[in-house]
């Protein structure tokens, strides 16, 4: 009898564990992403946006992965978009921008309790065929069981082999500001 009880207990425990693991993945496929390379001196806004960014967070391990299709980034000016895809980011050769990293202090964030949490994420950003280590602060906002994430960081375009010709150096910034954010849902599998 006692043994049976123990088997039952461990089975229950197992269900709890697997349930916990499965419920603890958060994701979105409609993250707002912007890529801004406007210079201070220029009137011309070099800013692309999309709301089709993908983000997945594995809560127990703090693993974070995000991806953006370069062609989904839309500029206001048609020619700017053509140049972005053809000459700078070369989207047919390098269609995606991917980040794979980890929350440095995942334990500080309680996804079940309302509040605003600041954490740091660091990992590898792959863009234009080049992979670089990046680190960025992330803000998680938990409200009524809903989790939202947001991050802002800057990348030096030269680091990713994206060169800015001198004739447009006053119009295209050397550093691009990237923002990424969205409302996360639980990933059910």
């Amino acid at each position, binding site marked *: 009898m006692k*043994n049976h009880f*123990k*088997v039952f207990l*461990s*089975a229950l*425990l*197992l269900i709890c*564990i*697997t349930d916990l*693991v*499965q419920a603890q*993945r958060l*994701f979105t*496929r409609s993250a707002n992403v912007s890529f801004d390379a406007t210079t201070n001196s220029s009137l011309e806004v070099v800013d692309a946006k999309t709301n*089709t*960014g*993908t983000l*997945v*967070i*594995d809560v127990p*391990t703090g*693993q*974070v*992965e*995000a*991806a*953006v*299709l370069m*062609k*989904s980034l839309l500029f*206001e*000016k*048609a*020619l700017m*978009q*053509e*140049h972005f*895809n*053809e*000459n700078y980011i*070369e989207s*047919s*050769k390098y269609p*995606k921008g*991917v980040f794979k990293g980890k929350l440095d202090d995942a334990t500080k964030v309680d996804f079940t309790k309302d509040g605003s949490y600041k954490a740091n994420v660091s990992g590898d950003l792959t863009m234009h065929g080049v992979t670089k280590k990046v680190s960025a602060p992330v803000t998680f906002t938990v409200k009524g069981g809903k989790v939202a994430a947001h991050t802002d960081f800057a990348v030096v375009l030269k680091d990713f082999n994206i060169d800015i*010709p001198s*004739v*447009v150096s006053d*119009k295209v910034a050397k550093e691009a500001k990237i923002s990424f954010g969205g409302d996360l849902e639980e*990933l059910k*599998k």
Partner: protein
Amino acid sequence: MKFNRIFSLFAFLSFAVALPAQDDLLSLVGEPEAPETHAIATFKGTRLINFHTLEVPGKRTLDFRIAHRFGSFNSGWYDFYGLDGGASIRLSFEYSYDGRLAVGIGRTSLDKMFDGFVKYRLLRQGDKSKPWVSVTLFSGMYYTILKDPNKDANGYDKYEHASSRISYCHQVIVGRKFNEHFSLQIAPVMVHYNQVQDFSDNNDVYLLTAAARYKFTKRLAVTAEYGWRFWDYTRTKYYDSFGIGLDVETGGHVFQVHITNSLGLAENQFYARTNNKWANGGIRLGFNISRVFTL
């Protein structure tokens, strides 16, 4: 003992299921959905050398173009191989509100020609899927304000009726961007002259044209265009228009430099009435500058 064994088995199984998937979290939610995209920049501008390409200015884009052709190389040392005279210039504006329908106006110095045209992108080549080609329709109307130089000698004005000053050009441009480097377009062309030069001339001229570019760096491409006049329409000696060029892209504008045997810059001039030939150096240096404004 038994409990421990069972427990560890379960524990192992549960982790075995949970762990491997964590290596690639993104695959759990599937690939980001590709937006419906078209092949971009099949050609670098709305014109290749003289010929219209299948490109139409982007949304709310005004394209201001300056085209210039020097005199021919065979004019010799005295005219410094075409630099001194016999040049022609064309200024034009093209605008598209939706990136599909474009309207344009232009003025060409040769024959004091005004023109207006409509261009419509009927079909856009898909990025990776169908359709395999882009199709653009073009219709232009040309009006010369030239005075009849032989009016007094002939005793009549050949431009007595304003309609005699008008000609038309229609084309269906079919093209494909095969890869990042190579694009090709084929266009059947029809030119109609309300008034011809000789009694035996045809009012209608049909041509088959081809234009291609090979992009060899991010910002440089070589281009070529050829118009085959398979139609017998005149007794005057004319030649097929042929040009080769280089597209240079510099940030906000495209600079095109080329060598062509055509002097005229309007469709009713270079397609059917190119009167210089490559063989005897009847070619000239030319350039197009395009500057776009978003309105």
